[in-house]
């Protein structure tokens, strides 16, 4: 079951990848609109900041989603094959936490990202000419099957956190903090990534503590906030993975690795994730902490 959910999470990321490649290709060819500072001639739309913004969202998003999926798959492997029974149990608990996040968050985040390709392709995209609408439609089912987003959220908050008092989740938070401390010692150019992750993890920990308290005292509230807690977890976990990527890329560059262009691009993408995507965690955190009292009053 974990195996299938992780793969459905990966479907979202894979569809974003496919749509992204088409969007880049389209944007490189489609000429429209001048850039004031560069003169009167229209340019390929890939030069327009807003198109670059959308492409970067897709790129950073899919990188983070894929990385998280692979971490979950590795944990699944180790839950079966690690040396000791205790290690296997620890990895099994890790899979338990990561799987609903990978399936739930990846699928939800992919909805928006895959549609950006339609936006970039404009009328041509919408009218089926570039094929991107198929990926939008293909992605639409990923939040539905193999357990809806609500089910993934319920699994994370109602089952996993309840079953062990949050112990496995705390282990994940600790892992994130290791990366924070490694970044604090890293090259100055990537320290801001660490700072952003640190703030996000602190906030996540605060919200997590709130959830644990309410798990004990008010289970109904949890149903209301579960979705946003899942999304909060996803955005921060994505930031954790992009931070790890930045650390590795930075070390490789310092060590004189040849692939400078790729590594520099990885760093840039990680920076972008922390600046443009990670802030979404804050809105989900606010929603959880509001306890959803207003929700009960809304009538339909």
């Amino acid at each position, binding site marked *: 079951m974990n*195996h299938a959910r992780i793969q459905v999470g*990966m479907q979202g990321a*894979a569809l974003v990848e*496919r749509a992204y490649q088409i969007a880049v290709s389209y944007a490189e060819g489609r000429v429209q609109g001048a850039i004031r500072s560069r003169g009167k001639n229209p340019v390929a739309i890939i030069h327009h900041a807003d198109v670059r913004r959308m492409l970067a969202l897709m790129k950073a998003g899919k990188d983070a989603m894929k990385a998280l999926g692979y971490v979950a798959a590795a944990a699944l492997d180790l839950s079966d094959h690690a040396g000791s029974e205790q290690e296997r149990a620890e990895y099994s608990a890790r899979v338990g936490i990561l799987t609903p996040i990978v399936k739930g968050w990846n699928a939800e985040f992919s909805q928006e990202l895959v549609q950006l390709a339609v936006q970039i392709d404009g009328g041509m995209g919408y009218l089926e000419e570039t094929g991107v609408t198929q990926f939008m439609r293909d992605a639409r089912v990923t939040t539905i099957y193999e357990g809806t987003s609500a089910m993934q959220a319920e699994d994370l908050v109602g089952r996993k956190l309840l079953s062990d008092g949050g112990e496995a989740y705390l282990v994940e938070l600790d892992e994130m903090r290791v990366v924070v401390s490694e970044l604090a010692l890293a090259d100055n150019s990537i320290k801001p990534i660490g700072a952003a992750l640190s703030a996000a993890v602190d906030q996540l920990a605060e919200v997590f503590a709130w959830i644990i308290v309410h798990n004990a005292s008010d289970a109904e509230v949890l149903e209301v906030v579960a979705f946003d807690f899942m999304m909060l977890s996803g955005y921060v976990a994505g930031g954790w993975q992009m931070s790890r990527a930045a650390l590795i890329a930075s070390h490789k560059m310092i060590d004189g690795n040849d692939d400078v262009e790729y590594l520099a691009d990885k760093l840039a993408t990680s920076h972008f994730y922390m600046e443009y995507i990670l802030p979404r965690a804050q809105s989900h955190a606010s929603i959880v902490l509001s306890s959803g009292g207003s929700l009960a009053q809304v009538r339909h």
Partner: protein
Amino acid sequence: MNSLGDQQGMQLVDSNVIAPDPFVTAYQQMVESGWPALSFPESEGGFGFPELVELAMVEMMQTANVAFSMCHLLA
């Protein structure tokens, strides 16, 4: 094959579910190459690769044709 599958879809004919022809051939080729057995234990006729490795294969397959990748996920 990806847009063909999108346009043609699956057909229900006399209680049989018919996939577009290229899907059938592609899946046969995939099976012959051994890909579905990638992460099954060698004792069961698989190649014993980790889930991590299978996921990399699955990612590529999904990027190419997510509908086709469901043959593997559902099997």
